């Protein structure tokens, strides 16, 4: 019984991370009907950015520190200038260049500033943790925005299989480019939480232990999910998002700026994936460029399990998947090897029995 409860707790924290990533899959699928293969790699980039910001390793160019804000501001002004010019007579590549530049400047600027903040505050500390988390989320938001802008937006009217292959290409690019940029070897993530090393257990009684990292992961997930629920249900953008995912063309007839909403969806999903990347590093502080592959696939399985396109379903599916994996790991000999396959067995089972997932609706195909 104690072992059972222990496995449930372990599974809950893994499941929370799956849920965070699965939400990104499910939102993008809901809006664009596209499986965003690159999402797992955005999660990897999130973890990597957390590592780079946290361990003060951002050395972008040879510009001295006092000149960096100036360069950054100049780049931002140029980007805004391009966008303002594009508003008058807008060839699409002009807008694309401007927005990409804008996202890039925001990402580099945030990376620079937050690295300085973390260096000033020093880690492990709660402020440092928050800075790392927020900066990583911002950078990945920009990354998700750029991915959608450059890779998926031009293909929106093409057959779905085209975008799917592109998504695989983006994933491959991030994974292998990551191996070149970040190096192949796993890196040790810096300690962010004060006292995590000396006091790793929050609760240790009756043979059941709860790790501090697990508790932080679960609470952070709950907080992020509350924020997401607020955005989706109680803001105008969220209303537009729901409208777009309900009926794409009609929403655009209702005066909703589709491009903005799709970009917003990608940013939201990427932000949550980056949060998952930093949070998992609290528990297993090893980050490497291939960490996103399996995690992304499993999170996708979680999204399918819960009913893809359904945010609550993604959360439920993620937690269910985490629990199942933990139980298999705990109760099967060689369980950790089998656990790699369990997600896919679940996937096949779901697709066989109820392709719409646990909370999904059955959609009848019409000609």
């Amino acid at each position: 019984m104690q072992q059972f409860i222990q496995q449930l707790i372990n599974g809950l924290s893994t499941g929370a991370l799956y849920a965070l990533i699965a939400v990104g899959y499910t939102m993008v699928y809901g809006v664009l009907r596209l499986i965003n293969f690159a999402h797992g790699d955005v999660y990897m980039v999130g973890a990597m950015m957390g590592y780079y910001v946290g361990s003060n390793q951002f050395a972008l160019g040879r510009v001295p520190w006092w000149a960096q804000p100036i360069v950054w501001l100049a780049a931002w002004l140029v980007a805004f200038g391009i966008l303002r010019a594009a508003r008058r007579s807008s060839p699409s590549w002009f807008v694309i260049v401007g927005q990409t530049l804008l996202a890039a400047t925001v990402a580099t600027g945030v990376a620079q500033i937050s690295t300085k903040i973390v260096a000033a505050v020093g880690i492990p500390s709660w402020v440092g943790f928050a800075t790392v988390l927020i900066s990583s989320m911002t950078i990945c938001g920009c990354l998700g925005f750029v991915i959608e802008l450059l890779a998926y937006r031009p293909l929106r009217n093409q057959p779905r299989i085209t975008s799917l292959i592109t998504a695989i290409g983006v994933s491959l690019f991030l994974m292998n480019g990551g191996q070149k940029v970040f190096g192949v070897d796993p890196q040790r993530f810096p300690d962010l939480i004060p006292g995590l090393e000396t006091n790793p257990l929050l609760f240790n009684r009756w043979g059941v232990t709860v790790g501090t990292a697990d508790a932080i992961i679960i609470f952070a997930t709950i907080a992020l999910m509350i924020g997401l629920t607020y955005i989706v249900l109680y803001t105008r953008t969220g209303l537009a998002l729901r409208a777009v995912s309900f009926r794409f063309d009609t929403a655009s007839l209702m005066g909703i700026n589709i491009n903005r909403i799709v970009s917003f969806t990608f940013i939201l999903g990427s932000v949550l994936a980056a949060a998952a990347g930093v949070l998992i590093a609290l528990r297993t502080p090893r980050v490497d460029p291939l960490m996103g592959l399996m995690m992304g696939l499993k999170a996708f399985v979680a999204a399918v399990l819960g009913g893809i396109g359904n945010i609550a379903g993604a959360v439920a599916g993620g937690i269910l998947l985490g629990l199942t994996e933990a139980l298999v790991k705990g109760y099967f000999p060689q369980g950790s090897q089998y656990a790699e396959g369990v997600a896919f067995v679940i996937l096949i089972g779901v697709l066989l029995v109820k392709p719409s997932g646990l909370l999904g609706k059955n959609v009848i195909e019409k000609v």
Partner: protein
Amino acid sequence: MVSASSTAVTSLHTRCGPGTIALLSNLWWPALIVALTFLFRHYEFSGRDDFPGPYVMRVVLLIGINVILAVSLQLINGVSGQFSLGHAGFMAVGAYLAGYATKTFGGIHSDADAVDPAAEFHNPAAVLLYFASLLIALGVVAATGWVLRWLVNRSRKFHRRVPTILATLLVLWFVVDVSRADRANDPSIVHPFTHFVGLMIALFEWINTHGAAASLSISNALPAAYRKPITFAVALLGGGIMAAVAGLVVGLPSLRLRGDYLAIATLGFAQIILVAIVTSQPLGAATGLQVPVYRMEPDPAETPPIVGYFLYPWVFGTAAITMLAVWRIAHSPIGRAIAAVREDEIAASACGINTTRYKVLAFVVGAFFAGVAGALYAHYDGYLNTRSFDLNRSIEIVVMVTLGGLGSIWGAAVAAVVLTALPEVLRNTSTLMPAWTPAFLKDAAQWVADNRLVVYALLLILIMLGRSKGLHKPSNWLRPARRLRSAAS
């Protein structure tokens, strides 16, 4: 199917069939490959011991294997319009089972565990028996499953629960079995008559042990010169058939899904296959499996060398057969049904086409050739590890198919040749490029060779953005791809 009309204009077509004429006019390419294979081996290998060199030889063989893989995936992804991301999984099935068969049963054991290298590939009947017993055991499992499914489907209101409970019990039994066999670390310890899996393993082993003497005597009755090629052929076919069975198992449930779901399902199945291999002790688990290597180059003692005693004609013969088979399927009535399913599934099923059947057919044939390619790869490399069959491998084949143009068999083959040869060429710029080549070009080539996968990824994205119809037609290089459909649906 539309029956051929009997007007005067089409009389030629009705007499020998449109497929035959088209076949004759399109046969020149595969025929060329076969001819090259069987003609040039004489000139290339006799008297010139080191001309191709072992490295070039390996690259050339790998090109052939990749052509088989790409063309067979083209049948699934391009011709039938499904999207499989698990081709390397089928390749793994073929590679591991064929490799295991030739390793364990293909040689003649002179003493307890050592196999004389000269006696490798000398027992075709035992290899055949191995695959037959595997198929029998699988058949019993399938029959059980089918009976259960029949019961579930037959059950009406009152008895509805019974077969479901039965099925659940069977699955539980299976899980308990696997865990016990695993705990004991030896499947044969599980008592054969109380456990289903144990029963199947016992059946499998009973056939193999009791048939060993008979199969050896059959093999000995064969002329010695034919034993080696026959053993190899049996291993290749067996690996292909097992992969086809795997394709059937994967395809039947997952081909009810469409497009992107199918991609994920096949990917999931490929992962499951890899996990199954990694956890299986007889297949070498995580450390990998050593497999006897089929002789790669012809025996210098024999002039002209005997066809069938080295890998080159096998690989390129299979490549030619694969292209021919895929081409024949694509241009047959079956192929037209498959094309109809690809273009519009709902309309096709409204026309009376059994969509699932044709999709599964394409999938199974594709898996078969992937299995054969895997078996070739096993005996080419001599060492099997699951890392050779992971997602990256599948994606690499998808890149070949996409680059070649979805639906174009020649495109896939050429793309496979180019994408396999190019990194090797670029890696050896110092020897292949003339001396006066500027250094930055050499560096660039080296960079491309080192960052092959990054370049693949960029190519994939760029081709999809600009030339989503592939590069197989020169006219596609200049003109942007036409936008076909107005809305994503």
